[in-house]
């Protein structure tokens, strides 16, 4: 095993404080060559903070970092990169206006002899890297046009291009589906063989056992336990993360489904810009009944997001054909406001860009959708009602915060997700559209969200849930609709199938295994 491999990096006594919050305290952590070291912990445990310290993004911390035995103190990310440390950030920090290639080589553009940027070279290298992680996109495409999943792949490619000795991956797969994850694991194995040290952060427990050698668990900024990742069970990990036994079973128990709530017939979206090469929903039909949780499965770009956005009236796409019936009545939501008025709510997949006003308080973010219904006299909003609703929502979803007045941007990812969730629940919807609702959410919070989903469904609300996590779809949903190339190709009852069947269906293989 890699246990006797040389230590590439050693962190000793690392501490970091944000105002009253101790994000890290007295953390010792090391990375060995040829090893994948998983870093686990609840949302807000301090994983990203610790790794940002190592990668030079955070420069004011206490403690010591040693690279191959030598103490260093980075002045910024570039110093760290020079020392061979690269990081894939949890928030996809890319420049939307620049092309994929320009993003990959930003800050270290290859030059021609006369000192100009060598665009051709850059594109060739980029195409190679993209191929290596299994996607084939034109390197000249502006990053702003890409979906979250694709952007995640681009950040991975960017980190690979640095040829680092130490590669930190902070939730690299949160928006990827199983197929892309497999491809990534292939790359990680390759890197491990080449002797790189890798830190892997994820909330998908199945991935840890699959890819990691060692696992360290952080709780409230402190190291609590270290495991041999190959022998660790999800239950053990979860218990260490939370500090008490927890149920890790994905289950959303709820009653029987009622009458039909949503019917989509032959939904076809006509893209506003045909040149993007995207396949929009092209003839999707499905139904959701009251009290039913229906999953949407598919590979990256299968059209799940596009479908949900269209149903919510938030599509960036233009016109659409087909019929959408809610409670048997034709609806054509003109926008989110109209959709909400009809009882349709939506939780977007990118909470930081589309979900939250990051610098505003948790309170303001939570009640945003209902604030104009909390009016007492004329225009005046009842502060008490605002506070009560926000507090109730935070308690119900167990949002971890010190005060409702905290800027929502300072919460951990999972807790941010819960705030968006809570906002939509406050609108008392009858149909809830969820796009990757547990992206970046820790295992404990996930279980809580699933429980909540069960509760919601039990109240007769219909849920349409798009997810890339097969275990989630199978554990939570009653039925799963599989999308491929903008069409619904299969519909499966989750009580009858396993993950392998679902994976096969998303990739277009018959249950027998052959490529269709």
């Amino acid at each position, binding site marked *: 095993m890699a246990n006797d491999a040389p230590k590439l990096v050693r962190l000793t006594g690392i501490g970091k404080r944000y105002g009253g919050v101790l994000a890290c305290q007295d953390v010792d952590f090391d990375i060995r060559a040829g090893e994948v070291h998983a870093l686990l912990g609840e949302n807000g445990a301090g994983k990203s903070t610790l790794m940002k310290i190592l990668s030079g993004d955070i420069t004011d911390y206490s403690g010591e970092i040693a690279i191959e035995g030598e103490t260093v103190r980075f002045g910024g990310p570039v110093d760290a990169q020079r020392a061979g440390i690269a990081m894939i950030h949890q928030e996809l920090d890319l420049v939307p206006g620049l092309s994929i290639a320009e993003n990959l080589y930003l800050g270290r553009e290859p030059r021609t002899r006369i000192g100009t940027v060598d665009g051709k070279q850059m594109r060739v290298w980029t195409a190679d890297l993209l191929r290596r992680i299994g996607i084939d996109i034109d390197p000249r495409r502006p990053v702003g046009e890409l979906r979250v999943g694709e952007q995640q792949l681009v950040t991975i490619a960017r980190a690979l291009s640095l040829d680092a000795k130490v590669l930190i991956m902070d939730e690299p797969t949160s928006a990827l589906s199983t197929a892309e994850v497999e491809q990534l694991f292939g790359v990680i194995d390759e890197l491990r063989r080449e002797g790189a040290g890798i830190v892997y952060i994820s909330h998908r427990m199945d991935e840890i056992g699959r890819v990691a050698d060692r696992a360290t668990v952080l709780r409230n900024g402190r190291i609590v336990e270290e495991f041999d990742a190959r022998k660790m069970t999800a239950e053990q990990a979860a218990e260490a993360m939370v500090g008490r036994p927890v149920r890790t079973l994905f289950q959303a128990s709820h009653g029987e489904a009622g009458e039909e709530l949503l019917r989509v017939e032959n939904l076809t979206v006509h893209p506003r810009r045909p040149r993007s090469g995207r396949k929009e929903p092209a003839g999707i039909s499905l139904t959701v009944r009251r009290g039913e949780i229906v999953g949407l499965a598919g590979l990256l770009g299968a059209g799940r997001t596009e479908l949900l956005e269209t149903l919510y009236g938030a599509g960036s796409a233009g016109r659409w054909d087909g019929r959408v019936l809610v409670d048997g009545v034709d609806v054509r939501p003109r926008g*989110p406001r109209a959709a909400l008025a009809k009882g349709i709510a939506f939780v977007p997949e990118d909470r930081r860009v589309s979900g939250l006003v990051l610098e*505003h308080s948790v309170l303001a973010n939570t009640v945003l959708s209902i604030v104009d219904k909390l009016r007492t006299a004329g225009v005046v909003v009842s502060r008490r009602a605002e506070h009560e609703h926000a507090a109730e929502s935070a308690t119900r979803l167990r949002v971890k915060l010190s005060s409702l007045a905290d800027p929502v941007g300072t919460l951990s990812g999972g807790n941010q997700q819960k705030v968006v969730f809570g906002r939509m629940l406050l609108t008392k919807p009858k149909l809830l559209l969820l796009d990757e609702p547990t992206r970046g959410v820790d295992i404990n919070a996930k279980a809580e969200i699933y429980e909540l989903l069960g509760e919601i469904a039990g109240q007769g609300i219909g849920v349409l849930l798009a997810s890339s996590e097969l275990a989630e779809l199978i554990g939570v949903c009653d039925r799963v609709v599989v999308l491929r190339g903008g069409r619904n190709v299969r519909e499966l009852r989750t009580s009858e199938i396993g993950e392998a069947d679902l994976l096969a269906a998303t990739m277009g293989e018959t249950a027998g295994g052959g490529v269709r």
Partner: protein
Amino acid sequence: MSLQPDVRAKRKVDWRETLFSFQSFFGLIAVFVAAIVFSPRRNGEILFLTSDNLFNVVRAVSEIGIIAIGMTFVILVGGIDLSVGAVLGLSAVGSAVLLVHDDLGVVPAVLIVLAVGLVFGLLQGMASALFGIQAFIVTLAGLQIARGLARIWSDGQGVAIAYGDGPNEAPVTFSLLGERTFGGVVPIPALIFAGLAVLAILFLRTSAFSRHLYAVGGNEKAARLSGVPVNRVKIIVFGISGLLAALAGIVHAGQLNQGSPNDGAGYELDAIAAVVIGGTALTGGRGSVVGTVTGALLLGVLNNILALNNIDANVQLLIKGLVIVAAAALQRLRPTS
């Protein structure tokens, strides 16, 4: 650690926090103290502190202040309104023409002028929100258009307002705008400014609309997906700015007994400076009318003390530039969130 979230609404009170939430106020106090120190004296009396002078200061900032309140709304949603100075000119001209040439009464004239400002603002808001044109450019064009309209409406000349009951005379009530009340000490424009400021502060603190407004400025996409009527909010905000600019124009005409098409030139920049010094971010989503009022007063005190000391006009430009930068830099001391 407890799993029960702590949902107290009040943040732990941090003295630094408390201090900095008032910081544009502190900037004002600093300038105020400086004004007292540097004020010329006569017979031991500090001229700056005479009530007459203090009310002069408030009167002098009242128009910029009124405009700046409207500007605060626009900037809070992430927009900007360069047309306010020109709209002030347009409505000053409008007041004068309607009162004098058209012999309208004060109420109809004022209502028409306010309506013109409101509609002008709403139109700009629509151009910006519905066609997605950047506010800077819409209102830059709006500035030119309002200026052109003002010149056409006034035949290119200042329209003097004479008071009386005869034809081509304005009702004497209108002249009250230029008067002082409460024993001849408090100028009426200052009262209007103060009243409006209180209204705006209350409105931004309590209304549902203000929640929407801050959200649009903070993250437009998130606001839209949360069901906030983004376009409506934007349009209304420009309408408010136009309306307040028109009101400032009426005050201007009343104070100066004239409406001239070039009135208010460059006021937009003063108003924006007041807003920014008051701590409102030009990117939107963060700021307050309290800040704007202190920002406007700060500029007013600065102008006053420079004038009382008879600083050379050119040197005044330098000092004002530096103080504006310093005041804006002060904003940065706020503990980062």
